[in-house]
């Protein structure tokens, strides 16, 4: 998308900063027409396969410019000194336009969250934060999503043509018509074509081969929500993005901390693109969502030659990036059983940067207690083995044990025998081992009384 915008469309406002989705200089907005509304999300165009644009409204900075005058976001950025060298600026402006177009409440916190994938090397961000405050104030009167677009145009947030976009989008063929289903794969899967979801890992790791590979794209389909529930089984489509996970009422009901967890996963534009299946199949030993679902004992539904096969996530990883899966197996969805009421689900990630970072160590825990005994504890850790690791023996040990620091020390001793970290830029072996201990304790901290000293 980035090359198409700059080289074919000669729109050079969108900048090339890293081609790896790390800096946000190439951010564009991608609008989808669904449920009678436009839904705009920010994405990094450097990692977006052009095919993913099908049926979507792609907005670059040029598409946000108003004739002869600045839009509200741009004016706030100029007035507050939010631009210095200017190279990252356009990405910030586009992300903040996404904030203006979002259906969430226009709070400064949401505004700041919208730029969590944009790096600025000059300003130190404070001037941009002031611009966000101004924009948030200007958005205070924004009406409900159904009426927001004309209002945003009228108030000078957007150029006039945005008001006609819903009509124009409604006339487009539904993107899913010839493509793949967001929640299930309905086309012939026995092909060597690479299945591309958001592309956020594939285009970083294999940019040259991906350029020449046959690819199949995944499209959203309206009929099925990305996350659905039957009794106490929750299913999630393989093409569900990290952002969609965080918006799912089903998940939010049972995992109230999910938004806080997802904030630690890459950045807004990447969460808007990257899919659950992509995260699991990419098999990174440190994949955040992988660790999350390992603790929930998720079951994967693979589809090939019109046959479905169920594989526990815990059996998927055989070695570094080696999968218990046929190359033509397509990860259609996963499902898991909801934890029993009162269970705690925790996710911790330690990294050098607050957000937009790869973990040194991450860990998830599902904890069910009976009084002061552990009924069930399911622990997973990332970054300490060639694969994302379910701590099978540690988890088994904890079942039925009393909740006290002694139990945790014993559990740690077992966990230390399950992990095999290597020293790298994210930390030394000793540090990662220490982190596993600390995270184990952090998971149980809320259960322990004040008298148990964690450190």
């Amino acid at each position, binding site marked *: 998308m980035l090359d198409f915008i700059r080289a074919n469309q000669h729109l050079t406002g969108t900048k090339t900063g890293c081609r790896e989705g790390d800096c946000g200089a190439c951010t564009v907005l991608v609008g989808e027409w669904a449920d009678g509304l436009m839904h705009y999300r920010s994405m990094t165009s450097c990692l977006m396969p052009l095919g993913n644009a099908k049926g979507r409204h792609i907005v670059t900075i040029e598409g946000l410019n108003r004739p002869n005058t600045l839009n509200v976001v741009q004016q706030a950025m100029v007035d507050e000194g939010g*631009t210095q*060298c200017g190279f990252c600026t356009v990405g910030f402006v586009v992300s903040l336009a996404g904030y203006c177009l979002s259906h969430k409440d226009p709070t400064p916190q949401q505004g700041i969250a919208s730029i969590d994938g944009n790096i600025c090397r000059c300003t130190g961000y404070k001037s941009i934060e002031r611009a966000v405050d101004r924009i948030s104030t200007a958005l205070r009167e924004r009406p409900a999503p159904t009426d927001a677009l004309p209002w945003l145009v009228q108030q000078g947030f957007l150029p006039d043509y945005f008001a006609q976009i819903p009509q124009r989008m409604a006339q487009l063929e539904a993107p899913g018509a010839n493509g793949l289903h967001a929640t299930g794969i309905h086309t012939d899967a026995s092909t060597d074509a690479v299945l591309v979801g958001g592309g956020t890992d594939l285009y970083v790791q294999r940019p040259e081969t991906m350029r020449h590979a046959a690819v199949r794209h995944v499209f959203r389909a309206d009929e099925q929500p990305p996350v659905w529930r039957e009794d106490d089984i929750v299913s999630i489509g393989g093409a569900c993005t990290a952002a969609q996970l965080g918006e799912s009422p089903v998940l939010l009901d049972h995992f109230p901390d999910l938004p806080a967890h997802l904030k630690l996963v890459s950045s807004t534009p990447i969460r808007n693109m990257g899919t659950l299946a992509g995260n699991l199949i990419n098999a990174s030993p440190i994949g955040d969502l992988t660790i999350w679902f390992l603790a929930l004992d998720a079951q994967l539904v693979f589809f090939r030659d019109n046959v479905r096969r169920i594989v526990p996530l815990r059996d998927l990883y055989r070695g570094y990036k080696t999968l218990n899966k046929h190359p033509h197996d397509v990860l259609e969805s996963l499902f898991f059983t909801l934890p029993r009421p009162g269970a705690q689900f925790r996710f911790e990630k330690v990294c050098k940067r607050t957000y937009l970072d790869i973990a040194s160590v991450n860990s998830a825990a599902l904890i069910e207690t009976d009084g002061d005994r552990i009924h069930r504890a399911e622990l997973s850790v990332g970054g300490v083995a060639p694969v994302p690791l379910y701590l099978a023996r540690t988890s088994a040990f904890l079942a039925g044990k009393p909740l006290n620091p002694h139990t945790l020390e014993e559990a740690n001793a077992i966990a230390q025998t399950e992990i095999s970290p290597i020293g790298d830029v994210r930390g030394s072996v000793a540090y990662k081992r220490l982190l596993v201990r600390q995270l184990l304790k952090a998971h149980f901290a809320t259960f322990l009384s004040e008298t148990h000293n964690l450190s």
Partner: protein
Amino acid sequence: MHNQVIGKPISRVDGRAKVTGKAKYAAEFTAPDLLHGVVVSSTITKGRITHIDTGDALALDGVVKVFTHQNRPKLAWFDMSYKDLDAPPGSPFRPLHNDRIKYNGQPVALVVAETFEQARYAASLVKIEYAQEPHETDLQHHLDTARKPASGLASLLKPPPPKARGNFDKAFTEAPVQLSTGYVHGFEHHNPMELFSSTVVYGKDGKLTIYDKTQGAPNSQFYVSQVFNIPFRDVRVVSPYVGGGFGSGLRPQYQLFLAVMAARELKQSVRVSLTRQQMFTFGHRPATVQHIDLGAQPDGTLDALRHAATAETSRFEDYIEVVVNWSGALYKAPNAQFDYNVVPLDQYTPLDMRAPGGVTGMSAIECAMDELSYKLGMDPLELRLKNYTEEDPNEKRPFSSKQLRACYQQAAERFGWTKRSPEPRSMREGHTLIGWGMATGVWDANQLPARAEAVLTVNGKLRVSSATADIGTGTYTIMTQIAADTLGLPLEDVLFRLGDTDMPLAPFQGGSLTAGTVGSAVKIVCEDLGKELLKLARKMPNSPFAKAKFDDVFFVEKQMRLKADPSVRIDLQTLVDQNGGRAIRTTATSMTNSLKQGKYTRYAHSAVFVEVQVDEDLGTVKVTRAVTAVAAGRILNPKTARSQIIGGMVWGISKALEEETVMDHRYGRFMNHNLAEYHVPVCADIHELDVLFVEEHDDVVNPLGVKGVGEIGIVGMPAAIANAIFHATGKRVHELPITLDKLM
């Protein structure tokens, strides 16, 4: 000068172009039939290329040529021709010169194709075989080979270590309180957001117009002219917008050489852009090992000070920076010794990076002073004030101005320093350890000669130009302000242009010297224009200005007025109309007053106070609050100046906690050469930052009395943070950045 806009928080005049995406950077200019070049980088660190197979690459549609050392054109013979205006002593790196590999990531081929995609794919098909030789890249393992750096022209702005004073050995041995300590930091890369790119437009007559990412268009022009033996007039370098520099654009980078070579050989326009990975294959802040000895009286008076530094450089050039001099200028210790050495290794030559040497040396001395304060049981700020000096002990001369004491006082008050409990680990809240630390910052306030042109057009608009740069600093804006006030025009009637070698010569943008240097040229050229206007006024019939001298008039509200009687006035438009339908044009050079300036040490100063929170269980550090007070002479624009200081402070946070290029010395290769793992702060890492500008008058530094503010913001931050972390945790980390693992 009647100050209408100088000193006011004017918004950036280039803001509109930048927020709309209309500002064009080096890779965004184009030409008919533009070809695209992609660089192939060496995968070994030292050795020879034994074989290059370009067959697969050349067989692809659209691939025009693959340049290697085997087929490159003949170029300038002598090293001299490859020395750009900022080259350190040595023999500059020549891309595609021969089969030798001198460092990992060295450019070894340029693939040129009709589209960028074709070139990029073809580049992946070039097969290169090497004969590897053992390499040395680890500074700490080769300290025994340290030697004095060669000196050259660069020492003009980078003085060698000061001469020893008193008798250090004796004073240190006899000092009742002694401290010997050391500090280390690794490689850092500038990583401006914009990737290095050059678009070379090949003119019909073979003349070149080059859009280059550079902090000094004249330097790129000089380099191209020398290397390719082209007259200056046939090379024009244009660089109106630069997506960040921080020093990386002080020297021409290899994409410029490669793009010009390809364009000349193919007689066609060529663009070469580097990748983010390749942004780690040229200059960097050098890894440095420092040692400091301090000897003090129980009351804190410093008797003895020794500061020694050893930094890495390449095998081919001796990069130097000023690391140890700052300690000697800041503290009046009567017995002092300084030493600075380099260790040549198999890597690219280091390059000035924001406050080069300054932030390095000050981080060490200000941490050492903090260590000493605990040894003495003395407040760290008290210790600084105890050893405060009004005279530069290195040069035994006064400072042109030094409001550092006011910086300490005002920043400490704003921060609430008196509420600090001195004991380490004494300010915890649950599992969060809180620490307060402080440090000092110092940076040069240099001025160089510069030229500028001013034109008052027939419709009364002022156009001023100078071949300087604006790498995000605010040059466009402050120069517009200076010009507007000098000739009494509103901002909207003034257009300042820069970044073009067709404009009058100015030095590159670096060392925080643009405001004083180019600002002086703009002031003088506008005054000269004012003098021309006065001449026109005097020639008018019955002119009330007939006997007026330039000192008798002033300019305000688009008019020239008599100081003695401001009701005597004339519109500038009327004066232009007197010029026979022609614009009025002046060119001027601002010279430095070396005689006067040489009598003074000219520095900007800062005091930094920082609060950190450390998670006791995980080692994560947050800088929750920082106050910097800056004394930098006159502040031309508090809005852009504040941005510069805040930006510098965030660089300081980055240097203290996040930023480091980590090398795997087995391969001599950087492991984290991308923005995912070369950490620079994200918005969520940055909390409360406060900036105070302390009033400071200085009529020595330059005619405007300004000291640059691009660098002073970073200088004191890393030490203040490290000191706050010690106060929080009781743990003294001697190696930057202080990552979580070092605190556990």
